[in-house]
């Protein structure tokens, strides 16, 4: 048992932090915020790609560097902390993981090398409108090798060259792979609460597509993919939450009211202590998720759901209390507090809300309980 980053992993994280401090300072983030049509910062994306981060967990056989999942988690934490405006989450935690977990050998060979090098960007398109997508209410269709329907919002949908799309096939939901620059696809930027991570409405009209891997139940496949993405994204959430807490702490030390730093008032101290506890819960849950992901443990679905819920809670709590601790200036466009408030909600919704994940977690725990009871009865 060992429950921390190794020294080498820590060194990699420190290096990543230094790199991002230089490559992705706040003006870079604001450059996208103030020009939402950009969706992401292309120069930053190229620099990140040059670092080899995109291929950190992708096997060498598919053009990756195969450094490891815990290492990728460390990078995610730093990306979250720096608010980097890049499509890393869509392309790496989601699209690449989808290919790795569910793609056919051919699809992996064909598509992963360009993702690992950062030349290509991919995404996953699930949502269609208000509420959680379900097999019953899904309108996008997959038939005869083509997709028809509308997906909204699709994270990094303008930047991505390819997408994996959840659609209704003849025998139930499937995941279909399509070229977003190909025929039958039209897309348009959509405004979101976090312009530093772009999004699109994508309309498919008989767009050519192929099933991902062997096909099969697309909702179940998506759940397997989401477990992997959730762990990785929980590290971005953790990094952001830690940063938001630091900002609040720093301000509480500098800002005086009634002749003393506001950070000396217990109402502020205890509030920030509560944020710290939420962050520790997120950290512990994320680490456990990283272990499950890196070892492909059977605990992965439960660990991922817990990491997701804890990550959503922590970043939300830290981001909103950071604004509160700042008072009026925290409410301005000029101060950076709102960048975390926006990003916290972007990450909190991008894989489905914490509410949905709570349901999922309890379902999993119940199934586990039933299985262990059956085992006991058999014995």
């Amino acid at each position, binding site marked *: 048992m*060992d*429950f*921390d980053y190794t020294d080498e992993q820590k060194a990699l994280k420190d290096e990543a932090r230094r790199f991002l401090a230089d490559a992705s300072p706040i003006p870079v983030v604001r450059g996208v915020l103030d020009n939402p049509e950009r969706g992401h910062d292309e120069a930053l994306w190229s620099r990140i790609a040059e670092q080899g981060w995109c291929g950190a967990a992708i096997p060498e056989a598919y053009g990756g560097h195969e450094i490891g999942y815990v290492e990728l988690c460390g990078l995610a934490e730093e990306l979250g902390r720096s608010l980097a405006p890049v499509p890393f989450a869509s392309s790496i935690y989601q699209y690449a993981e989808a290919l790795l977990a569910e793609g056919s050998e051919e699809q992996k060979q064909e598509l992963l090398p360009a993702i690992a090098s950062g030349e290509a960007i991919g995404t996953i398109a699930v949502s269609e409108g208000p509420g959680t997508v379900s097999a019953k209410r899904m309108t996008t269709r997959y038939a005869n090798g083509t997709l028809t329907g509308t997906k909204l919002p699709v994270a990094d949908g303008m930047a991505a060259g390819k997408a994996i799309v959840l659609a209704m096939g003849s025998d139930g939901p499937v995941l279909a792979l399509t070229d977003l620059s190909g025929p039958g696809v039209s897309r348009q930027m959509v405004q979101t609460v976090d312009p530093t991570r772009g999004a699109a409405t994508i309309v498919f009209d008989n767009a050519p597509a192929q099933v991902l891997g062997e096909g099969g139940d697309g909702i179940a496949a998506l759940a397997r993919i989401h477990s992997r993405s959730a762990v990785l994204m929980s590290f971005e959430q953790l990094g952001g939450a830690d940063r938001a807490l630091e900002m609040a702490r720093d301000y509480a030390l500098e800002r005086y009211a009634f002749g003393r730093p506001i950070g000396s008032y*217990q109402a502020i*101290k205890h509030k920030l*202590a509560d944020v*710290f506890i939420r962050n*520790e819960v997120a950290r512990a849950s994320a680490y456990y998720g990283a272990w499950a992901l890196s070892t492909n443990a059977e605990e992965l679905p439960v660990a991922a759901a817990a990491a997701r819920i804890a990550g959503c809670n922590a970043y939300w709590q830290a981001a909103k209390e950071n604004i509160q601790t700042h008072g009026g200036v925290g409410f301005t466009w000029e101060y950076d507090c709102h960048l975390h408030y926006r990003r916290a909600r972007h990450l909190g919704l991008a894989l489905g809300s914490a509410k949905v994940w709570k349901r999922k*977690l*309890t379902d999993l725990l119940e199934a586990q309980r039933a299985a262990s009871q059956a085992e006991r009865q058999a014995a």
Partner: protein
Amino acid sequence: MNFDDTPAEASYRAKVREWIAANKPDLTALPPEERLVWTEGHKNAMRQWQATKAAGGYACITWPKERGGAGGTQIEDVIFSQEETNAEIHDPYYITGLKMLIPAIYQFNDDAKFAERVPRAVRGEEIWCQLFSEPSSGSDSAGIRTAAVKQGDEWVINGQKVWNSGAAHADYGLLITRTDPDQPKHKGLTAFWLKMDTPGLEVRPIKTMGGDSELNEVFFDDVCIPDEQRVGNVNDGWSVVLATLMNERAAIGQSNGLTWSDMMDLAASIETDEGTVMDDRAFRDLIADLYVDLEARRLIGFRILTAISRGQSPGPEGSAAKLLWSGGTQTMMSEALDMLDQFGLVQDSTLSPRAGAYQQRFLWSCGLRIGGGTDEIQKNIIAERVLGLPADVRVDKGVPFREIPSGR
């Protein structure tokens, strides 16, 4: 990061699981009222268990052999505790002495007289208690008033301690006194170890709101303690307090009790028109929340152990773990009673689920938020030591102790 047992850990776990199953105390042999903690029957069964563990090489696993330990690793100690928990062995008598007090005293004293006590404690022959808190000194743990005055080779003690867990059952105690009231609060304290049957010492049990008498008052009326039982230097008792509290924090990560899975069992046993409480949407969301917090507490415990096993001292994560545990337990018990609906009121060992454990813990959980540092003090610790926020405005700083105002 690795949560799997290594092959060596797995084989150790298998070995101790088998050993515990073969040797564990049989509480069913006791009359039902004697199966509860802090009763003579339960205490004697646990005394026997401690002796069995010592003979088997499973007591104080991390301590060197010459101190009566097993010379084992931190991880082995954790694995053994986990397996004890799985076997539903709950022992509140020896933890204070073996996990908190004796290791702290050892940092200051390794003389023959103290060393003689240690193997006896390991074998369960002697129980230790913590004599720190006083009527005017709880959270303000340096506000000690119990006085120690040097007379020849002895110290004469007068004053009162309170909230001392297990003092009525204890054979020895670690005592903090004030030796110089003219110095500021944290200076002028001195620690001693002493026998609980020393003349002039009187223990009076306190009935807690839970109905048990785990806690006690301890009165000192001209109690004489030889100077050789002083722990650390004169007027340096605060260092002893800090050493003890550090151990306490590390021990908290390992404590156990009813958890989310017990709540699921209870919910599944309560019928509703839709099935069981397990089918209730709001309850399902609650289980997810409880799971996340309580598992995180468990995992934070592992983080603390990882730090210890790398030779680092555990950070204030312990405060976070304690808050998650105490708050989580109280919330959980309140929800358990609510899901039983009106029947939740019934606290009867023959009628209530798990012999009334939920009701008992509903009451007991209030103490959890107070003992070992209150919720508020834990948050102060996090705010000041982790986040580096300023300490409270202190009106007692640098003031000679005898001039500090005291309320009720």
